[in-house]
């Protein structure tokens, strides 16, 4: 028996080394894949590694990133919001429609955010109040609001202004602070705010608890329904702001524009989960996920990949990253 011990030790050592490797992969695989992709692109794609292009990527992901922040909180609380794109639409459309009625920029933006928040309250009522599963409740709202958007824009015609966009909105949608696009600044400020909510405010702690074990949280005295409701209202209001930025960028209200962001938003949160030690949705991770998706699209554009193949490649890369993370999780035991 003694003679066997060194062999056994070696085996255990090997096993531990392999486990440590997979632990590393599961924790940093997404980041590493992101870095590898960026390095490859900087060699093969002309103009990738320039300040101008990096700022372009950041601008392109800011709407996705902002929507992802709200979704991060909802998913951390154990839910999902399939109507988040429509909340963005409501924000943009309400804002532009009121501007067209002669409202000032400030009140119009606030009304857009309020419209988003109202949608969040509808989701919250259905989920926390009535008890419909989040997937189904927000799917229903998603479908209803899409239909309303079409009905109120005569079948999906964009809402244009018969005058110039007010200056503050031009600044929000297309302006720069120094070299940095305003919307990137907005993303950074909101990301910080969400980070604080998540890690330094009681709400963030409650959201995590509710997401991990709703019943145990309830039996610890947490008002679980109030917490859940808050995440949906916050997420919709945040998405509405993203919608306002989108509208300001194109100087018009585009019906059904937000829906295009839904899958990317969910993908960003899922990719972000892989970089957290506990596998939870987290603010930083979502930003990395959004940056990953934005960089893929940017790189393919620079490389002149046929447009119709771009989403295919994006989907394939996303599945690759998630498969790696899931494989590494089972390997590390």
């Amino acid at each position, binding site marked *: 028996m003694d003679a066997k011990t060194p062999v056994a030790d070696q085996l255990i050592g090997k096993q531990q080394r392999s486990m440590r490797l997979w632990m590393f992969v599961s924790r940093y695989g997404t980041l590493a894949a992101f870095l590898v992709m960026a390095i490859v692109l900087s060699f093969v794609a002309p103009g990738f590694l320039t300040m101008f292009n990096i700022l372009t990527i950041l601008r392109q992901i800011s709407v996705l990133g902002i929507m992802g922040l709200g979704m991060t909180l909802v998913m951390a609380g154990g839910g999902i919001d399939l109507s988040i794109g429509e909340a963005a639409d409501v924000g943009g459309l309400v804002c532009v429609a009121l501007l067209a009625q002669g409202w000032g920029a400030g009140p119009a933006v606030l009304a857009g955010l309020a419209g988003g928040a109202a949608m969040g309250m509808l989701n919250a009522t259905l989920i926390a109040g009535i008890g419909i599963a989040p997937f189904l409740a927000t799917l229903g709202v998603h479908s209803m609001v899409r239909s309303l958007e079409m009905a109120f824009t005569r079948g999906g015609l964009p809402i244009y202004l018969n005058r110039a966009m007010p200056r503050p909105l031009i600044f929000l949608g297309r302006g720069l602070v120094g070299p940095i696009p305003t919307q990137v600044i907005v993303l950074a400020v909101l990301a910080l705010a969400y980070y604080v909510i998540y890690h*330094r405010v009681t709400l963030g*702690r409650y959201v*995590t608890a509710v997401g991990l074990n709703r019943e145990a949280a*309830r039996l*610890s005295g947490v008002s679980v329904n109030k917490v859940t409701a808050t995440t949906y209202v916050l997420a919709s209001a945040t998405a509405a702001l993203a919608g306002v930025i989108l509208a300001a960028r194109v100087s018009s209200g585009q019906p059904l524009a937000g829906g295009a962001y839904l899958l990317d938003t969910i993908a960003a949160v899922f990719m972000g989960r892989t970089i957290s030690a506990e596998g939870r949705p987290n603010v930083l991770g979502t930003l990395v996920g959004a940056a990953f998706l934005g960089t893929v699209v940017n790189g393919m554009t620079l490389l002149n990949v046929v447009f119709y193949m771009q989403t295919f490649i994006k989907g394939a890369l996303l599945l690759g990253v998630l498969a790696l993370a899931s494989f590494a999780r089972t390997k590390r035991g």
Partner: protein
Amino acid sequence: MPCLLEMTDIRKEFPGVVALDGVDFQVEAGEVHALLGENGAGKSTLIKILAGLYTPDSGEIIFHGERLTGMTPQKVLARGIGFIHQERVHIPYFTVGQMLFLGHEPRKSNGLIDWQRLYEEADAALASTLGAHIDSRLPMQHLSVSEMQLVDITKILMTEPSLIVFDEPTASLSEEEVERLFAVIRNLKERGVTVIYVSHRLDEIFKICDRATVLKDGKRVGTVDVKKSSPDQIVTMMVGRKLEEQFPKVETKIGKPVLEVTNLTRGNAVRDVSFTVREGEILGVYGLVGAGRTETMRLVFGADPKDAGTIRVDGREVDIKSPGDAVRAGVALVPEDRRGQGVLVDMSVRENTTLASLKSFSSRGFLKLGFEGSAVAGFIKRLAIRTPSSSQLVRYLSGGNQQKVVLAKWMASKARVFIFDQPTIGVDVGAKAEIYRLMGDLAAEGAAVVLVSSEIPEIRGLSDRVLVMYKGRISAELSRDEATAEKLLFYAMGGGAVDA
């Protein structure tokens, strides 16, 4: 009389527990045989081995003179042993007929299901089970619990078994339904079917059983002829004599009432329950599984809505509608399902400890992390929680240390009333003693403590006073000296109700 079933020297070990330690169990053809024992005595394990759900580590099972080995539930059923399980598995949208013929529906020559024949045969089968006046075209979800049970019995009888095992069949039945079930069982006996009847309830044994085998701590205590026996004799067999564990009972000064519960009611589970717990007092609540103890405590804690009743804390009436209300009123519940309800296993020791009192560790919603950290460190030290750090996920702590985290959570919330529901289940002996000591400390500091337990030594060793529950009511209140094991079991099995 011939032996229909002979289980000899059955042994089954689970990690850390010997569930069955060489049990012999013989059932004669044509009798109704009771299998008795306290919670954890080994009844369920023995039944599950017979059902082919567990494989015994050693031992022999002979049925109809044939040795059974390598059994699976299907094979056991095919040999003619049927089971009426406590938890029934039904498909709510299926009709009674579909349920009865699930997997062996009668077919027409073209291979399609012959619905007409299915329902005709289902009606005939139901009619042959005494008192099962059930329309075979009704969906299962429209049936009462008792009717579902009759469907189960019918389904079993369709396999023409020679032995049927009833595992605590009356747990969720009303008294009339119990009588109806007994009529069915007597009818089975007349038809020559042998019955094994697993139960806690003493009165039932004396109504329908011929013989009874008593298990205790995984061993067979003995088998008696019910007609020649008495409730006292059977209770004594179930309890045994020795008090195995020592309990550090701290003498405390018992002060004014802290928790006063009056006329608490919820459906049939909790009926008109009133009790008081005082400062420094440990109130034991004894009863068998299904007696309504957990349900009562969940009502006090606001985890379920109550139909009626008032709750006072420190003399003031409090309106408890949710656990949040209870926490604010100073009531804490340490639930039985520790990993599912007591702690959040994927949160850290620190996050768990302050979850119920996060407001006092924050100002205007912003967490005071430094203050929180030092407070949690204090609790880790005071309760001797063995964890590498406060950021360790609770998942990785032992059962006893997880339970201490639950305790820390409620101490941080400055609770006045601590309700422990089976606090030492799955906790090793050393940690048990520590949890007992902590309960004593809480009482000594003036808290009111409620201890719900199915373990008689625990109840007797720690309580100043004991309530016994039976079928949703308090069947007895005993002082520390009165609460002998015999008396506790007597009242827990409805003994008082039999006399009355």
